[in-house]
């Protein structure tokens, strides 16, 4: 497993993302109306999908943490929020660049764009909160509450284009997209998924190591016995 994460996963990520983007940039036809600019789809849409997925993992991890306390789910929540914010921000930047030639504007306060902005702000707030609370347990509980409430943004962003009038179009489906464009999108999306998993694994390890170091700290001073420390951290986890 470790070997796969170290070598296999990066290779798989590069291969899938490279193949998907090559298909999208060189192999797929341009759009009838958007021309070459439509190729932004193969980076914008996977980014947004994976941002949604990461933020959903954050929600699940937060609920799981409150149900059964464990530093693993807390670390998972921290990792997924940060990566979800990264992907979501990139999704918004690429979407905004896509909007300039097609819509004519980089930004408009339409329901989709506004709800997406609120979503990103709420996950930024989540990560800031985590920074400011020193006590690991309080931090985990409070941030889990913020994560659960912040997660209502996910369905709002998703359905915003159906519930309200917006500049952003409704979701496409394979019926509304030519097969030569669906294939690169699929491959790019799996590549982005591999990248998400790769980032998640490493970010999770960082968060878990930080948690264990924080929890181990008070005991580490009087007694330096590694056996005791390991015992303690596993009790908390």
């Amino acid at each position, binding site marked *: 497993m470790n070997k796969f994460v170290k070598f296999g996963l990066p290779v798989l990520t590069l291969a899938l993302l490279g193949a998907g983007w090559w298909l999208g940039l060189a192999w797929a036809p341009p759009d009838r109306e958007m021309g070459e600019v439509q190729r932004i789809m193969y980076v914008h849409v996977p980014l947004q999908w994976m941002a949604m997925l990461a933020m959903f993992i954050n929600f699940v991890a937060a609920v799981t943490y409150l149900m059964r306390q464990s530093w693993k789910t807390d670390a998972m929540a921290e990792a997924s929020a940060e990566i979800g914010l990264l992907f979501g921000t990139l999704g918004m930047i690429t979407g905004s660049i896509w909007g300039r030639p097609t819509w004519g504007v980089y930004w408009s306060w339409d329901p989709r764009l506004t709800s997406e902005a609120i979503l990103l702000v709420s996950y930024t707030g989540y990560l800031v909160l985590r920074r400011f609370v020193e006590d690991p347990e309080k931090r985990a509980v409070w941030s889990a509450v913020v994560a*659960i409430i912040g997660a209502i943004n996910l369905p709002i962003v998703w359905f915003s284009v159906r519930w309200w009038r917006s500049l952003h179009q409704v979701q496409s489906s394979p019926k509304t997209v030519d097969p030569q464009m669906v294939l690169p999108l699929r491959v790019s999306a799996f590549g982005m998924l591999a990248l998400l998993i790769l980032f998640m694994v490493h970010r999770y390890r960082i968060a878990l190591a930080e948690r264990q170091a924080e929890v181990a700290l008070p005991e580490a001073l009087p007694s330096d016995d590694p056996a005791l420390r390991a015992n303690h951290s596993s009790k908390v986890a």
Partner: protein
Amino acid sequence: MTPVNRNRLIALGALLFAGAGLGFIAFGNIGDNLVYYWSPSELLSNGDKAYTATIRLGGVVQPGSIQWNEGHTTLDFRVADGPDANAKSVHVRSLETPPQMFREKIGVVVEGTYDKAGIFTSNRLMVNHSNEYRAPKEGEEPRKWQDTLAEGATTATVTPPGAP
């Protein structure tokens, strides 16, 4: 109360709160107060309310309504409820260059003011794309199309399209 039970109660409370919030937004008719743009018929039926402030109007560019002035500096067209010729429509005047995708029958959202003369002066013209992505049809390969247009661009501008 043990910390575990307390945490579970917190989870329940947060979930209930989130669910209620979501339900309110989804089914609470919040959309009525949160209208990104008005349709032409809504604008026409709103009368005086429409004259006051900067508003957005959204609809479809009525076929055959696009008109440029001599110097290609002012663009006049009608935004209609739908693509058919009898749909209610509003006269829009725009002083800026529209996005390239602007054409007849495409969805647009314009930002500006509506005056008593019945003209909507737009200072922001946005084009609304559908969720369809298609390869060019047989015989309309965009690159070739671009070449021919780039060569004949000067002649193309001489004849304003869509003059009714």
